């Protein structure tokens, strides 16, 4: 009820129009019954009895019947247009609010919620929340109509009114029972629908794995099991409908029969006329259908409340990452200094019962202005997390990340975005043109800048070869491009904004070594007058690392060593193992070849002991 109340408060005028239309419609329904009765009693019966037609009266009767129809149409227009507009406006308004909230909430919140959930929050949940709005004015109008009907019945004859008093409340009660029993079944079907859809989404997303491992049959079984549960749930919904729908239809018919019997007795007693009898019987026939509209509203309510609760969860979610109000000098083209000081970070658990994992502990380092710092470490050491912190995708649990001495949390969104740029490990491209993907409509990025960025990212060649050049649509998630092409596009996107700090998170892994070398050379010396940006680069390749002024070696979320590549190579065994892995492998192969009889090696650890 609070949901409906809120809806009315938000769109009071349009709701008033809809209810007015509905009440007009309802009144006309009652009126039509009496007009029909009146026409039969006062025009038809006398005319037939007399054997002659009173043209005036007949014309009047026809006009009255048609006039009522016209008024009903007006009522329908008001009600349906009002209700529809109200419903759609509310849906649109709340979709805007929910998606705004998505943009405001921090990434940590996004991590805790699956893409599917967020999609359905903004789509089907908003829809469900406002779904009862459409039949609501109809229901209100029907209520008015029912009261009117009972009052008019009493004005006609108390005995017939009693029949009405028995039938209409019974109809209403039957409706309520129906809705109550239907709601949990509908909810179950809805839940199963979501689950079926979830399985299909996941299974089709992983279609390649399913195919290459020949697991189609098992996946189909997994899907079929849930699809059959859904089938059973829907059959149970259908059976309930089968029980109640015919009963709801029969009840008013029985009422009409009762009217006939009671009416006959009252006619004998001289209490009513044929006109009145016909009117009342007609009233029962026309009222039966609208009364069910109330049932529809009631049936939709639980779904609406559930949808509304889920929408509320988004709107009320806390933990925004507010931006500050300090700005770094925007006109300054020089590189920025990035500093991590005693940074700790742990991801919040995806589910409440799981432990959160501490990813970074006491991380501290500096990327001095204009320098390149390489971040090196084994798989799962926390390198991507450092990259996320450096551009404030997430905030540290403790410690600070600063740019030119200013805490990232104090910067405005605009200043932060203009100063730093991240190229992520997995490239994300929008379903838009190449141009829009690179410029992102940021001010001051023209076609020349886009091409310059593409050249720097070694992507100008393939973009020029695309059918529509910069205007080529890249498709949903960039499906028309190869992995390496997507990576270079996102690299160009970062470069186009002329950031003062560039963070590359293993951003060239899908690019061939030769292409990567060209890109890096361009980045380092491209401007001619020294580096335009400081660079923090997550890398494995030695050529990339060798370009760095300093190397930070990360292991299990801690900075184990820092220094130049040569220093670390000499002093840090873990680092040396990591970056010289290929050379060592080659040397060992040389040895293998010398002592050809060496048995096959079974684990990496033994190799290290051998050495």
């Amino acid at each position: 009820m609070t949901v409906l109340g809120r809806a009315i408060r938000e769109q009071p005028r349009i709701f008033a129009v809809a209810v007015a239309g509905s009440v007009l419609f309802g009144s006309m329904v009652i009126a039509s019954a009496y007009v029909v009765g009146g026409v039969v009693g006062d025009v038809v019966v006398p005319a037939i009895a007399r054997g002659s037609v009173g043209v005036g009266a007949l014309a009047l009767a026809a006009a009255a019947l048609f006039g009522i129809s016209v008024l009903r149409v007006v009522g329908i227009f008001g009600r349906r247009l009002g209700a529809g507009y109200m419903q759609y406006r509310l849906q649109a308004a709340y979709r805007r609010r929910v998606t705004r909230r998505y943009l405001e909430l921090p990434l940590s919140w996004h991590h805790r919620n699956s893409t599917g959930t967020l999609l359905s929050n903004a789509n089907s949940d908003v829809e469900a929340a406002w779904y009862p709005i459409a039949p609501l004015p109809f229901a209100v109008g029907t209520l008015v109509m029912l009261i009117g009907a009972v009052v008019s019945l009493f004005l006609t004859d108390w005995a017939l009114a009693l029949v009405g008093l028995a039938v209409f409340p019974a109809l209403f009660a039957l409706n309520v029972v129906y809705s109550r029993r239907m709601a949990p079944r509908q909810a179950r079907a809805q839940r199963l629908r979501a689950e079926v859809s979830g399985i299909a989404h996941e299974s089709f997303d992983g279609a390649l794995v399913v195919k290459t491992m020949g697991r189609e049959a098992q996946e189909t079984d997994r899907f079929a099991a849930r699809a059959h549960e859904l089938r059973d749930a829907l059959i149970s919904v259908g059976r309930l409908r089968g029980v109640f729908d015919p009963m709801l239809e029969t009840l008013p018919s029985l009422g009409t029969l009762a009217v006939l019997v009671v009416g006959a007795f009252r006619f004998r007693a001289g209490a009513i006329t044929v006109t009145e009898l016909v009117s009342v019987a007609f009233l029962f026939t026309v009222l039966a259908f609208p009364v069910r509209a109330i049932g529809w509203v009631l049936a939709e309510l639980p779904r609406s409340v559930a949808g509304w609760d889920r929408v509320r969860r988004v709107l009320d979610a806390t933990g925004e990452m507010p931006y500050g109000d300090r700005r770094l000098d925007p006109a300054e083209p020089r590189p920025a200094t990035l500093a991590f000081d005693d940074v700790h970070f742990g991801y919040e658990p995806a589910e409440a019962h799981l432990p959160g994992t501490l990813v970074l502990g006491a991380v501290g380092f500096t990327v001095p202005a204009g320098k390149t710092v390489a971040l090196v470490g084994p798989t799962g050491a926390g390198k991507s997390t450092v990259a996320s912190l450096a551009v404030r995708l997430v905030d540290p649990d403790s410690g600070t990340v600063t740019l030119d001495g200013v805490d990232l949390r104090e910067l405005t969104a605009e200043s932060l975005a203009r100063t730093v740029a991240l190229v992520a490990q997995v490239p994300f491209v929008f379903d838009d043109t190449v141009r829009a993907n690179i410029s992102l409509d940021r001010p001051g990025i023209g076609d020349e800048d886009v091409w310059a960025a593409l050249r720097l990212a070694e992507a100008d060649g393939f973009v020029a070869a695309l059918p529509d050049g910069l205007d080529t649509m890249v498709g949903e998630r960039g499906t028309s491009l190869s992995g390496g092409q997507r990576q270079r596009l996102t690299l160009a996107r970062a470069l186009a904004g002329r950031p003062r700090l560039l963070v590359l998170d293993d951003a060239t892994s899908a690019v061939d070594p030769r292409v990567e070398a060209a890109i890096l050379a361009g980045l380092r010396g491209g401007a001619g007058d020294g580096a335009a940006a400081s660079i923090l680069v997550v890398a494995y390749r030695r050529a990339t690392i060798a370009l760095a002024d300093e190397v930070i070696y990360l292991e299990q979320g801690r900075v184990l060593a820092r220094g130049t590549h040569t220093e670390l190579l000499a002093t840090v065994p873990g680092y040396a193992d990591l970056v010289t892995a290929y050379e060592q492998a080659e040397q060992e192969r040389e040895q293998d070849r010398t002592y050809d009889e060496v048995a096959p090696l079974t684990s990496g650890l033994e190799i290290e002991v051998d050495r």
Partner: protein
Amino acid sequence: MSTAPTTEAERPADERSESTWGTLRRGLALSPELKVGLAGTLALALVYMVGRVAVPVAVQRGIDHGIVGGLDLDVVWTVVVITAAVLVVTTTCGYLMMRRLFTVSETALANVRTRAFRHVHDLSMLHQQSERRGSLVSRVTSDVDQITQFLQWGGVILLVNLGQLVVTTAVMLAYSWQLTLVVYAAFAPAVLVIRLLQRRLAGAYATVRQRTGALLGTIGESVVGAPVIRAYGIAGRTERRLDGAIERQREAQQRAIRISILGSSVGELAAGLALAGVVVVGVSLGVDRTLSIGQLTAFLFLVTLFIQPVQIATEVLNEAQNAIAGWRRVLDVLDVAPDVADPGEQGRELPPGPVDVRFANVGFAYPGGPPVLHDVTLDIPAKSRVAVVGETGSGKTTFAKLLTRLMDPTTGSVLLSGVPLDQVRFDSLRSRVVMVPQDGFLFDATVGENVRFARPELTDEQLTAAFTELGLADWLDGLPSGLATPVGERGEALSVGERQLVALARAYVADPDLLVLDEATSAVDPATEVRLQRTLDAVTRGRTTLAIAHRLSTAQSADEVIVVDRGRVVQRGPHEDLLKDPDSVYALLYASWLEQTR
């Protein structure tokens, strides 16, 4: 209307050209179970409808014989009791009809759903990828939901109301053919107008659906691309796009409802016209003594019984159009013959033992694209370890896809152990040949469940042993809950490199005779990669492995390297031999690799 190009493999021209009946026929042919007991259900529906006409007839009888023509309470009682008994029977029939209808239709549709699901998996990789993400999903979800929802709601209503039209017309004719003509004359123009509106309404609903799809796409992008949006400070731009999409959807919805209201208004006006006409003509007939008062009264009731189905049917028909369109889309998917098909029963098993590979004059081109591979002929002996190298776009990944029969060659053929690949039964092929793709997709389950994917019977101990054999025991121990660690949606709780480790373990426990690695360790750190490489060499000894690699460390340790350049095999042989020619493609690639790594 947006003119955004769509990659969907739907054929809008065909979709329009096929009639509703065509779809129904096709649908019934695919789900013969729908026809079971259909006659009985229809008979029950017919009886159920009789209940609706019973009351006006009773009123007529009661008024004519019990009240107006001299009061006779016995007649009234008889009429009422008989009608009540009829109502009890028809109500029961209504229940039985719905029960049968729902049970049969839901069962049939669940089967269609499952079949379509399986069929999507049977489509070739190329076909799957040419469909827009989500559009295949909606074939087995929202499209089928649309049909079931229609059947639950509109289907019964449509069935009952169409029947009601027929029965009502029959009764009206029995009372007075003249008045029946009047009613039809009043409704004829309305039906014509409504039909016209219907067409516009169908268009309007199509726009709503399309804009809803676009809105979902935009929301999806803003959710999946949240890090980019935040990192580039483009929340404002995203907001504008979202608002635009939301507004466009709302406009389309409002346009649809305006047309729909117009339709019901026309019906309503026709009803008023019919009532007025019946009174005028009815009175004239009554004066001529061809119609009694009771009959005229009954007729007025019958007109309302006639109006209701016409009005409801117009609304329900829209839903029916949607449902039919949904059905058609499901059937269209089912009708696509998989272009890379399982030979099934006629197929052959791969001979037991290690697998050798032969490419015989293999050429390949993506549909509508230039050739990617030209006339490749080569033999890979059983038990050998081969690396395929080449620049981006050279066609090396195509090797892996042809070898695992994700695609069929355009020309020539691929043979495994002498058997042409397209004659090998899929169950034999998939259990003996396993590929680890670069993007090792993980399911939203635990690490253990993902590794167990191909071999559900494996115990935790066996899985742990597999990780140990791969030299990944330390990594596994480092996870918060070991094998029971959830990997999150698409494995996103793990780093990209870690996902590749799990995918590799998954392929390893599948125990294939031919293992194809497509840059399977591209995001893993070098030390781990080298270690993995060594352990893989050891554990896959005795099997054939083919690795697509851009890290040349893999090539160095392979028995043989195949160098691909612009769709042709330009060099092959052991690493050392290939280096002997300093100007060769491989020597250049290797020089660049060395430059990068030391």
